């Protein structure tokens, strides 16, 4: 015999309370973002009115003369993150494809575990490792042959001192590989086995099956994984500041020191004694906030378009 139903009025009231609690929680986060944006805007206002839009493209950062321009940091943030993606994406996708498609069963768990372990290492440890291991290695074994072959390009001009855009990009790449690899692996695991079987049945090799059936199916998820890594690279602070050289300068050469927005804020905020200095750093924070939002928006649009494209494609089949 079924138990008697509780009174409808009771359900109605508890549901109302439940819904109100959920609504409050759900709205709290967007509200928090709006508050952050508001505080950044208000705090940055003195710098915005003093320097205008030229803050975005001037390179002087002189706390003594109180003249500020954020171009080198904007450039450094984007360049180091881009370099990190260039290195990390092929590496992370290879790991993910290997683990889901080619790896012997006994190797899967250990390799996946070790790759994900990279994400658990504190940022300051990466930075220290960068100073004492990576930079001497780059100086001794990587940059000389690179310069010998590609030294004529603008990207490898100048003397390599160690702390540089290159070192910053490589550290970032190592730090974001586990994120991209872990999410990509989940995405590829979710691709139905029938996709692979269909491709193999058509006479495709393993590689052709991955390329023509598995990867296109998971496109949206893979792009999401890459954007997740990019978001992390844009905001990373400690490890980058320890190896990038912290120089307010724009140079396309990977061998020269650079600066990122997050690093500058972390370095300079505690001793920014004047009002304008603090305000300029707040404006840098605002720009970083906007760039992160724009990157995520682009990612959303990409995923949406790719997902729609895939749906259209499968319909055509």
């Amino acid at each position, binding site marked *: 015999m079924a138990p008697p139903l509780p009174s409808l009025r009771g359900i109605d009231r508890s549901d109302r309370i439940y819904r109100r609690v959920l609504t409050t929680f759900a709205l709290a986060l967007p509200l928090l973002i709006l508050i952050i944006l508001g505080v950044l805007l208000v705090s940055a206002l003195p710098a915005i009115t003093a320097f205008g839009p030229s803050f975005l493209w001037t390179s*002087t*950062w*002189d*706390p*003594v*003369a109180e003249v500020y321009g954020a171009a080198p940091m904007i450039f450094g943030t984007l360049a180091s993150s881009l370099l990190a993606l260039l290195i990390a994406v092929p590496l992370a996708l290879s790991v993910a494809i290997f683990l889901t498609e080619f790896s012997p069963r006994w190797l899967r768990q250990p390799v996946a575990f070790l790759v994900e372990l990279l994400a658990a290492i504190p940022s300051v440890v990466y930075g*220290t490792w960068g*100073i*004492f291991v990576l*930079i*001497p290695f780059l100086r001794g074994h990587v940059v000389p042959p690179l310069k010998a072959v590609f030294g004529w390009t603008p990207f490898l001009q100048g*003397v390599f*001192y*160690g*702390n540089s855009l290159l070192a910053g990009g490589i550290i970032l790449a190592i730090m974001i590989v586990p994120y991209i690899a872990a999410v990509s692996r989940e995405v590829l695991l979710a691709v139905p086995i029938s996709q692979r079987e269909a491709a193999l049945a058509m006479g495709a090799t393993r590689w052709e099956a991955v390329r023509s059936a598995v990867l296109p199916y998971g496109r949206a998820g893979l792009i999401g994984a890459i954007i997740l890594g990019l978001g992390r690279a844009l905001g990373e602070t400690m490890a980058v*500041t*320890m190896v990038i*050289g*912290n*120089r*307010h300068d724009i140079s396309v050469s990977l061998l020269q*020191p650079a*600066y990122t927005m997050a*690093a500058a804020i972390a*370095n*300079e905020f*505690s*001793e*920014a*004694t004047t009002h304008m*200095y603090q305000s300029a750093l707040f404006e840098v924070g605002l720009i970083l906030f906007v760039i992160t939002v724009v990157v995520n928006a682009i990612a959303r649009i990409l995923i949406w378009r790719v997902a729609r494209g895939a749906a259209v494609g499968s319909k055509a089949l």
Partner: protein
Amino acid sequence: MKFTRFLALAALLGTAVPAAAQVTLNGAGATFPNIIYSNWMLTYNQAHPDVKLNYQSIGSGGGIRQFSDGTVDFGATDAPMTDSAMAAIKGDVLHIPTVLGAVVAAYTLPDVSQPIRITPDVLADIFLGKVTKWNDARLASINPGVTLPNQDIIVVHRSDGSGTSFVWTDYLSKVSPEWAQKVGKGPSVSWPVGLGGRGNEGVAATVRQTPGAIGYIELGYALINKMPFAVLKNQAGNWITASLESVTAAAAGGMKDMGPNTDFRVSITNSPGAQAYPAASFTWLLVHKTYSDSAKARTLVEFIWWAETEGQAKAPELGYAPLPKELRPWIQARLKSVTANGRPVWKGTAE
């Protein structure tokens, strides 16, 4: 029955607390003197259990900010407050020097065993990016008998704002008109050349890992890490290696310029003393001229005077240069001027 006994006990405890007259003083600021301040506060608390002192080493800029906002009872800084910062709190601040610090030019030249000598003008030109090779003719001429390598000079500076940078740029501004005009002095400046390292440890690590690098760090940090640092020529024309003695000598040499009525906001870089190390500096405690709480004010003044006298003996073993004894009457005069509710709080004169 039990309940009333409990109430009586609670009442007893309630009255017992104010009777003990515990005084708590909170301070915040410079990281450089953190070790000796913590030591002083611990030692002082053992002799005066009713006095509780807290110090947070959040950096000079943060110390000035919190002191000005009134969130702490006293501040601490490696760079004196500017006139405009003092005007913002209506001049209600005294700078009381406590110990001395020095900044040295540490370098890495694996094949050079003798200490390198650098004159002020060459030092400024290195940091301006005008002297770029270790075997530059000007460096070679002041280092006879030293085989300097044909290697790039890589300048390393602090990327975070810091009192160490203030002392260094203050010194370079005094010895080089070009530096003063192009760069100036401050906790953060626009560096003409070089790599930025975060904190003393960041600069030290980069200097050590980079052959041909030169960077400025606190003397104590260089001594602990056994890093070679340059011998500098002082104003009197003598070659001086940074040491606790030559740093104290810098403060003694700077006394002529200060005078007994000084507010102590003076730079002692490029000091005229014969044995003075040129890149030395006071580190200060920031104290209000007037307090509303006389118990707090008196305790603070008593603690500082203890630090200026008995406390100084602790300095050398902790790696700080003590103040010259000749400064004490001037410091005492400043401390005597601290008032609470219109009355001086110095012992003997109060109430």
